[in-house]
């Protein structure tokens, strides 16, 4: 009965109740939009990291993870390991694994005969990269061909900043100079197949990409520095990691496995930053909603002092009266959250439909999509948040109820 009375009490001063509902619903919609943007950004950044080349997991020799970054052969290259083809075949046979690609990391100098620039090289298997769903953002020219090049026909993709530094375009030839595994220098001519972007300006200024076979030829080694594993489903990463660890523990070489998050610490930093911003916004929204509704609820109590006095006189307890005020607050939260949910859905639909873009963030190259990913639990959380805020807002009017003196309330005009 109290719940019914509380709901009807909202209709007493419709303009004020509508204003309160508007505050709650706009606050709810604002939270939903912010949460949707943050979620989309997290998901987008995660996928960009995974599909940008890191994959879900990386398998490397354990010495590299122990802090010994030098190879056992005395060069400054990351340690390579042999028998990687049979290890890869074993890993690719595991459930949930989409594909496994070998990579070699190396560094050196690149020149077109006139200009020289240092580079960070990564060699890949293009056919497996495609199977793994890696996203290579080609700006000019083409991606590396799937087939391994024969000697003398080696290809390279240059980061767009590196290509600009060297002044080369697709079809030109660059020469790379690198240290081999035995410490001597080796030079190799590479045909520029295309120019690409990693999405990060500093990386684009240094990176180049070749086939694994090309890097092995240049380094004089048939090993690779890591195997990159891509899963069918990111959500199943934890289970897959346990399975893959078991496979590696029984393998011929001591190898370690690391997930993408530990190799991309900035993802955690971005999450912490966005989480902080979202919390700050939530606090601002909460304070605004609490202040606005606390005033509304208090006014509602002050206008009904005589009625409250009557109810107390005829045997209503103060706890029951406090419950009445509390229920009015919860009705405001519920109705406001429902309206805010509908408003949020409409706004999310409109924003996603418009396909808006935001300027590139610092150090990034491309603009980012202004899109929102709202999931059902967000609506529940926003509604629960509003309920808590309205409960807080109802404290001052409830305290007023507990301070009411019945005789004075009955004489209140």
């Amino acid at each position, binding site marked *: *009965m109290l719940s019914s*009375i509380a709901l*009807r*009490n909202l*209709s*007493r001063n419709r303009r004020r109740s509508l204003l309160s509902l508007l505050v709650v619903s706009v606050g709810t919609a604002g939270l939903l939009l912010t949460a949707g943007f943050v979620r989309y950004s997290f998901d987008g950044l995660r996928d960009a990291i995974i599909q940008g080349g890191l994959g879900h997991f990386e398998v490397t020799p354990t010495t590299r993870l122990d802090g010994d970054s030098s190879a056992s052969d005395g060069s400054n290259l990351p340690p390579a390991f042999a028998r990687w083809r049979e290890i890869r075949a074993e890993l690719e046979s595991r459930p949930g694994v989409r594909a496994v690609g070998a990579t070699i990391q190396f560094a050196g100098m690149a020149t077109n005969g006139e200009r020289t620039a240092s580079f960070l090289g990564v060699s890949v298997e293009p056919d497996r990269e495609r199977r793994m769903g890696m996203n290579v953002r080609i700006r000019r020219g083409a991606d590396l061909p799937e087939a391994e090049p024969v000697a003398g026909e080696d290809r390279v993709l240059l980061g767009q900043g590196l290509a600009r530094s060297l002044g080369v375009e697709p079809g030109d030839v660059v020469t790379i100079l690198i240290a081999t595994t035995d410490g001597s220098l080796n030079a190799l001519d590479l045909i520029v197949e295309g120019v690409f972007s990693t999405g990060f300006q500093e990386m684009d200024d240094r990176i180049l990409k070749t086939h694994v076979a090309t890097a092995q030829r240049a380094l004089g080694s048939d090993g690779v520095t890591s195997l990159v594993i891509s899963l069918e489903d990111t959500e199943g990463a934890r289970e897959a990691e346990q399975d893959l660890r078991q496979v590696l523990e029984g393998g011929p070489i001591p190898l370690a496995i690391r997930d993408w998050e530990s190799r991309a610490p900035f993802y955690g930093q971005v999450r912490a930053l966005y989480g902080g911003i979202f919390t700050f916004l939530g606090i601002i929204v909460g304070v605004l909603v609490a202040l606005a509704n606390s005033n509304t609820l208090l006014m509602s109590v002050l206008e009904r002092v*005589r*009625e409250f006095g*009557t*109810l*107390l*006189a*005829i*045997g*209503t*307890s*103060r706890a*029951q009266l406090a419950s009445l005020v509390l229920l009015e607050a919860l009705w405001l939260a519920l109705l406001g959250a429902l309206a805010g949910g509908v408003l949020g859905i409409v706004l999310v639909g409109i924003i996603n439909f418009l396909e808006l873009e935001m300027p590139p963030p610092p150090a990034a190259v491309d603009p980012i999509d202004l899109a929102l990913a709202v999931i059902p639990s967000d609506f529940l959380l926003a509604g629960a948040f509003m309920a808590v805020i309205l409960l807080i807002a109802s404290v001052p009017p409830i305290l007023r109820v507990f301070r009411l003196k*019945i*005789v004075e309330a*009955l004489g209140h005009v």
Partner: protein
Amino acid sequence: MTVGDSPTFEARHLSRTYRQGKVMVPALSDVDLAISAGEFVVVAGSSGSGKSTLLHLLAGLDDPDSGQVFFAGTELATCSEAERTALRRDQLGFVFQSFNLVPVLSAYENVEYGLWLNGVAKSERRQRVENALESVGLSDRMRHRPDHLSGGERQRVAVARALVHEPRAVLADEPTASLDSRTGGEILQLLIDLNASRGTTFVFATHDPAIVARAPRVVHLADGRIVDELRREAS
């Protein structure tokens, strides 16, 4: 202290003073009064004579500065707020000058509210509410909200609300003051009839001489003191 044959209300040396700004205004001074079960007592007096204060103290809505109030042998000063709330809920009914109905509830729901407070089951509530509204002549106005009822009808709803849980006593503070004389007379007659038929104790505060003239027992208050008391034989 509880005594089996105690008066329904008993006031002993009751005094109450209110502060108005810096001035202390005595509302009741050394009032002694006993009201037996089933009595219909009119507390008469001009405005400011202390009628409402006396009713508030008898109902445990306020505390005296000195003196004692007993309800059915129980001294109210010994009761906690929860016990007083339960006493008012279970054993008292109230009728106010301005009706004091809950505006968002229908006549039916206003009457039902008291039973809901008492934890009466819904099916029983319906029967008792319908009976109560029928007894005050409002069977056909049950679903109307107070703002769609006349003053007399609202006060009848208030009377039904006061009686529906079958209280030991009803306290009515100027219940006819907001009504015209004919409607006020009807309400008074209704209360007298209910007193006669149910045996409920009624304490009725008024300054209307026409009503005072019809009351079986009248306690006159002036300046917070009982200055006269009149008993009439039932006709």
